[in-house]
Every structure is written in structure tokens, then in C-alpha cells.
């Protein structure tokens, strides 16, 4: 559903139901009261008009969560989060947005411009409001164009038999599919944050690609328009049947307005025989200021199950945002000959902290996995690659290749590589390579002597360092991701 319509409908719905539930009617404060308890979960479920089983599922997850403790093993530090001091349900827009681009933070606009984002999308991303019944102040046709483009996309997908809709819609429209797969890859009780997400998720996508269908388009193209709707507790479920394939991109290179500090998403992928899923992420949430104030805590659980023989799941991520990132997209390689891939670029600058990596669990015979992780640290940031490769006794002929490269910019940042290798099969072959390098003065001077500014030089060198990962991204995003890397590292040298 196009962003604008969806937002409008959601707002309308809230307008009707607020009174009924006796919550604050102040339009600017259209949200549940602070705190988390069973009533809040019931409220979320009923606002989403969910069936009973979904509510039961949420409540069970909530019980599990209550008995759990926040994980402490990651190499990140942050003040304690008071989970009762947050709103778990809010209208899509708490405060009125800016009325035109003139009111938007010029710093944000400067970044959009550098990324080459068209004007109408800038307005959308910055949350510029369109007064009711009035024409959009900028590029009105362009906005409505993208809406109609989205509708066309939707039709193309329907004709191919692909289901692609908000998860809350799928719960109502395709309950059998959702029930069959939800929580089967990431059980609610998997970890503290997945339990929390399972109890309170409100946004996210559902994708189902039926047997033998190659999804006729990159779901990225569509998602780009919808990107604004990514929520605090996102829940995504992608199921790809035998011989089918899909490429999905989440996120956006542009930094987005978001007042929620805690993000705890769960993404589950299921691939059957000969199916393939390519999941790409560009994450650029607010990282906090130069002094480490503010910024998003991004605690994500992403996991894919290669259930079928010769199935393939490929994760590609470019992580530049958030104050804290805690994220390990993983593959469970169950089907014989299945393939898992993880390509990652993680950039930290200023006071950002990232603890990210992957888990490749080899269960089936002749399963293969590849891990290419590029870590770039600048400023006073700290970045850890944490990766697990586990080969179970039955996984004869399993192979893994891991390459972890760290690039340091300046001498106040940190980079750490923590590989865990557990092999319970004699026939498995596991290779691990790791390098740490610095952008040298020689390299910078060489580039500057050729006329490049220091920033362009850093951008060029960093993009060179990340090339093996960036080439895995869908074309149109690879170009933006390159620019994004450079922008993220601005002011990190000199």
C-alpha cells in the first residue's frame, strides 16, 4: 500500500477508535499510555483488528519476555532502558510534521541532496505534511506518480501470485500462512528482544512467493516508496516456496525522522527446495550527535531457514546509522546442499557502537556458507564483528569461508573480530581470514596530489575496501550506498 494512503487510513482509524478505548483524545498525543502490560498488548491487537490466536501468541511472548533478562554479552554499553517508560502504541505521527521543506532541518536536506534523492521523496522522508484538500507544495505530480507506480507494482505482483503486504494485513487476510510460519525461524523466546518484538510488533511486511515463481521485480523498488513506514518493532516474514525466488530490500539511505529510541525488529526468512532469497539492508537511522547524545538503539534479530535442498539465503547489509547496533543475520542450513551468504559493511563514527556479524549453522550435508564482513571504524567509535560457524555432526562436506576486514580511520577508534568456530564433523572445511588496516597518510596524500579533496579520498578508499560487499547490492542502491559511506565518514579525518 502506498505510504500516503496507508498513513492517512491509519490516522483515520485511530481517530475513530481512540474515544472508544478511552485514551487521550488530544490529537497530538494519540498514543497508548506509557508502559507495557497485558492490557497494552490487548489494545495493540484490537487496534490491529487481529484474530484471537494472534493475541494469544502475543500474550505468550509477553510472558516469556517477562521472565527474561536483557543480554549483556555484546560489546556495547548504554544506560539501562526503562521498558515501562515507553509508549508501545502510537499514531504514525505524534507531532505535526513540517509544513514544507523550508521548515525541515537544513542539515537533513543537505544530506538528501548529497544522496541525490529527488525533491518529492525528500518531502516524504522528512515527513512534510500535506494539508487536507490542498495540493502538495512541491512536485505534486511526482508524489502522485510514485503512488500510482506503487499501485502498478502491486498489480504486477498479484498477477504473478506474489503476496506482498503489511504484516498486520497478512494476519487478517492470510492467517493460515502466517500461523504456519510466524515464529518458526525466530521463536518468541529466542532472545530478550525477539520476545519483546513478538509481544508488541505493529509494523512490517509479509512476502509469499508461490512455487516456481520468480518474483517479477525487486521488492526494493516498491519498498523505497514505503520506507517511511518502518516502525519501532518491525516484524517481517518472507516465505519462498520450491523453485521460487525473491530479492527484498529494506531501509533507505536517507536518514529519517524518528523519535523512537529503541528499535527491535525481527525478520524471518523461509526458503524451500531450490528457492532463493536475497535480503538487502541499508540502515541509516539517527546515530546521535558528535558527542554521543541521542541516537537509535538498533537491536535486531534476523534469521533465515534454508529448509529445502539447494535453497539459498543471502544477506547483504550496509549499516551506517544508529547509536548502537546489535545484529546477527543468520542462516540455518538444513536442506542438503543449501547455501548461506552474509555480506556486510558496518561503519561507525563519532561515538557509535556496533556489535554485528552472523551465524551460519550447518545442519545438512554439503551445505556451504560465505561470510564477507567489512568493518570501518572512525572517530571514537567501537565496532565488533562477532561470527559463529557451527557444523553439526550430520553436515558432512560442509564448507565455510570467512573473510573479516577492518579499516581504522584515526587512532581513537576500536575494531574487534570475535570468530566462534564449532565443528562437530571431521569432513567440514572451514577457512577464516582476517585483516586490519588503516587508511594511510600515503594513500590520502597520493589522492590529494591528484586533485581529490580529503573527503573524496576517504570515500574512494572506503568504497574500494567495501567493493566485494557493495557489488552484492541491487544496482540502484549500490550507487546510493557508496555516497552514504562517504557522508557517514565526513569529518573523520584531518
Amino acid at each position, binding site marked *: 500500500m502506498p505510504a500516503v494512503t496507508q498513513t492517512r487510513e491509519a490516522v483515520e482509524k485511530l481517530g475513530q477508535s481512540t474515544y472508544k478505548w478511552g485514551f487521550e483524545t488530544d490529537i497530538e498525543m494519540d498514543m497508548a499510555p506509557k508502559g507495557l502490560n497485558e492490557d497494552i498488548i490487548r489494545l495493540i491487537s484490537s487496534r490491529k483488528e487481529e484474530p484471537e490466536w494472534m493475541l494469544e501468541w502475543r500474550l505468550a511472548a509477553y510472558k516469556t519476555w517477562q521472565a527474561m533478562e536483557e543480554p549483556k554479552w555484546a560489546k556495547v554499553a548504554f544506560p539501562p532502558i526503562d521498558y515501562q517508560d515507553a509508549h508501545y502504541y502510537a499514531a504514525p505521527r505524534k507531532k505535526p510534521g513540517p509544513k514544507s521543506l523550508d521548515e525541515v532541518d537544513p542539515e537533513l536536506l543537505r544530506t538528501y541532496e548529497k544522496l541525490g534523492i529527488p525533491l518529492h521523496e525528500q518531502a516524504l522522508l522528512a515527513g512534510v505534511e500535506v494539508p487536507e484538500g490542498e495540493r502538495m507544495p512541491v512536485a505534486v505530480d511526482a508524489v502522485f506518480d510514485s503512488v500510482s507506480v506503487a499501485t502498478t507494482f502491486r498489480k504486477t505482483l498479484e498477477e504473478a501470485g506474489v503476496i506482498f503486504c503489511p504484516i498486520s494485513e497478512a494476519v487478517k487476510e492470510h492467517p493460515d500462512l502466517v500461523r504456519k510460519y510466524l515464529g518458526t525461524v525466530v521463536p518468541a523466546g529466542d532472545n530478550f528482544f525477539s520476545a519483546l518484538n513478538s509481544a508488541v510488533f505493529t509494523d512490517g511486511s509479509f512476502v509469499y512467493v508461490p512455487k516456481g515463481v520468480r518474483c517479477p521485480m525487486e521488492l526494493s523498488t516498491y519498498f523505497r516508496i514505503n520506507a517511511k513506514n518502518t516502525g519501532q518493532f518491525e516484524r517481517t516474514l518472507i516465505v519462498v516456496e520450491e523453485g521460487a525466488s525473491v530479492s527484498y530490500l529494506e531501509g533507505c539511505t536517507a536518514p529519517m525522522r524518528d523519535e523512537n529510541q529503541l528499535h527491535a525488529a525481527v525478520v524471518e526468512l523461509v526458503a524451500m527446495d531450490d528457492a532463493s532469497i536475497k535480503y538487502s539492508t541499508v540502515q541509516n537511522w539517527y546515530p546521535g550527535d558528535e558527542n554521543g547524545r541521542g541516537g537509535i538503539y538498533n537491536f535486531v534479530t534476523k534469521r533465515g531457514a534454508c529448509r529445502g535442498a539447494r535453497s539459498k539465503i543471502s544477506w547483504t547489509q550496509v549499516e551506517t546509522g544508529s547509536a548502537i547496533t546489535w545484529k546477527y543475520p543468520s542462516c540455518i542450513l538444513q536442506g542438503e546442499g543449501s547455501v548461506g551468504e552474509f555480506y556486510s559493511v558496518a561503519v561507525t563514527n563519532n561515538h557509535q557502537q556496533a556489535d554485528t556479524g552472523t551465524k551460519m549453522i550447518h545442519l545438512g550435508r554439503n551445505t556451504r556458507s560465505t561470510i564477507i564482513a567489512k568493518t570501518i571504524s572512525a572517530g571514537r567509535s567501537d565496532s565488533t564483528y562477532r561470527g559463529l560457524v557451527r557444523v553439526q555432526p550430520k553436515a558432512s562436506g560442509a564448507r565455510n569461508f570467512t573473510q573479516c576486514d577492518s579499516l581504522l580511520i584515526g587512532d581513537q577508534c576500536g575494531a574487534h573480530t570475535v570468530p566462534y568456530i564449532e565443528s562437530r564433523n571431521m569432513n567440514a572445511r572451514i577457512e577464516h581470514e582476517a585483516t586490519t588496516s588503516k587508511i594511510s597518510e600515503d594513500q590520502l*596524500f597520493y589522492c590529494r*596530489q591528484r586533485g581529490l579533496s580529503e573527503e573524496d579520498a576517504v570515500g574512494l578508499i572506503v568504497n574500494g575496501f567495501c567493493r566485494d560487499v557493495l557489488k552484492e547490492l541491487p544496482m540502484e542502491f549500490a550507487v546510493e550506498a557508496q555516497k552514504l559511506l562517504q557522508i557517514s565518514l565526513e569529518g573523520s579525518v584531518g
Partner: protein
Amino acid sequence: MSQFLEISGLCAQIDADGQKKQILRGVDLSIPPGEVHVIMGPNGSGKSTLSYVLAGREEYEVTAGTATFHGQDLLAMEPEERAAAGLFLAFQSPIELPGVNNANFLRTAVNAVRRARGQDELDAVAFLKMAREAAKALSMAPDMLKRNVNVGFSGGEKKRNEVLQMTLLQPTFAILDETDSGLDVDALRIVAEGVNRLRAPTFSALVITHHQKLLDYLVPDRIHVMARGRIILSGGPELARQIDQEGYTKFLAEVA
């Protein structure tokens, strides 16, 4: 009238393990437009340091003296501003840039200086055409443009790549720091021709070399001998031939 390049009393030092080490001890040198000058001198005399200081490498601290380029204070400019103003340095040891495609690097550089010089940027097609022609003129294999900058290049390939960059960036003043060392006779000729193609009344060069061979092709205007951070002797092209036959020792003893 202000010279094209005018260096006077230039002193520079470096911080080596916490100790200030004086390297340039009063270099005087002026190069008029259109001329090719040569610096010879024993290893460690400061030739590369002079080229780095002229190109703006920050590790070297200029403690005295001046350098002007077209009457502008060269020492006050950033390295990239010097490049845009027309200064090019062919490095004695070219630097590797892993993962950075050579053609992409060259185009970024060419467009950066074009922008700074108020010229239109080149699109990918126009640039590639130009780069391929220039590479061919230097007898470089076509795949050199696709490879990563200097990564896995042989010594000779690196030197040719420097000359390729020089050709594309169209400097008005080029410093070639031992660009001839490690080249076989054929490569030497190709590199020399590359420099000669740039020769014009508005183009000057400062060539650092130990060998007469390169000079046979380049036909320089002046020869300078550097020792212990100073130009100790200057002369015509015959001076280079003399050094080539007799070595530096005699000249060093004469001035000492």
C-alpha cells in the same frame, strides 16, 4: 617578472621518533616556463623531500624560505589546490589503493581538477575514450585501466601508470621523482615520449634522476646537483654527462 616556479632559501624538517630532523637546508631554485630542469644527487640528499614539500605533504614542516608558483604562495595551498593549479608529482614509489578501480580513480581525479579549473566534467564515455588512447600511447595493456590502482602492478607498470595520470591531468608543472628507475630501455623511451608530448612553452618539469639515459630523450635545459639538503652546483646538460661518467664524489669534494 616573477618566475614560473621560484624556490628560495627553503628549509624543511621532519619529526622522526620525536626528534626534529633537518632535511632541506636552504634550497634555491627557479624554473622558467617551458624548461625542463634536472636534479641529481646522492641518495638521501633530500630530492624526494623537496618534491613532497612542493606537493604539500604535511609531515614535512617548512621552517624557512618561500616557494611561489605563478606568483602564488605555493606553501599556503592545500595539496589538492596545488594539483588544481597545475602541479603534478610522479611518485618515486606509487601508492596502492586496494579495491579502487584505476579508471574510476583517474576519472574522479580528472573531474576534480577540471571542476577546480572551471572546466566541464567529463562523462564516463568521453573519459574512457581519452584514457584508452593515452594508455595506448604509453603501450599499457588495456586491462590496466580495469585493475585496482597500482595493486599488483610491476615496478615498470606503476611508473607508466604515473605517466598516464600525468597525461590525463595535464599539469603545467610536473615533478618526476626517479620515474626512470627500474625501467628497461624500451619502457624508458616510452615514458620519455610521454613527457615530451606535454612539452610546451607553458609547461615545465623538474626531473629527478640518476641516469643520463633518460636525459638523452628529454633534452633538459639545466642540471642541478643536490647534496645534504642544498643545491650545490648547477650547469648545462653537459654536467649530467660528467656525473654519469665520474660519479658524485668529485663534485661533492669540490664544494666541501
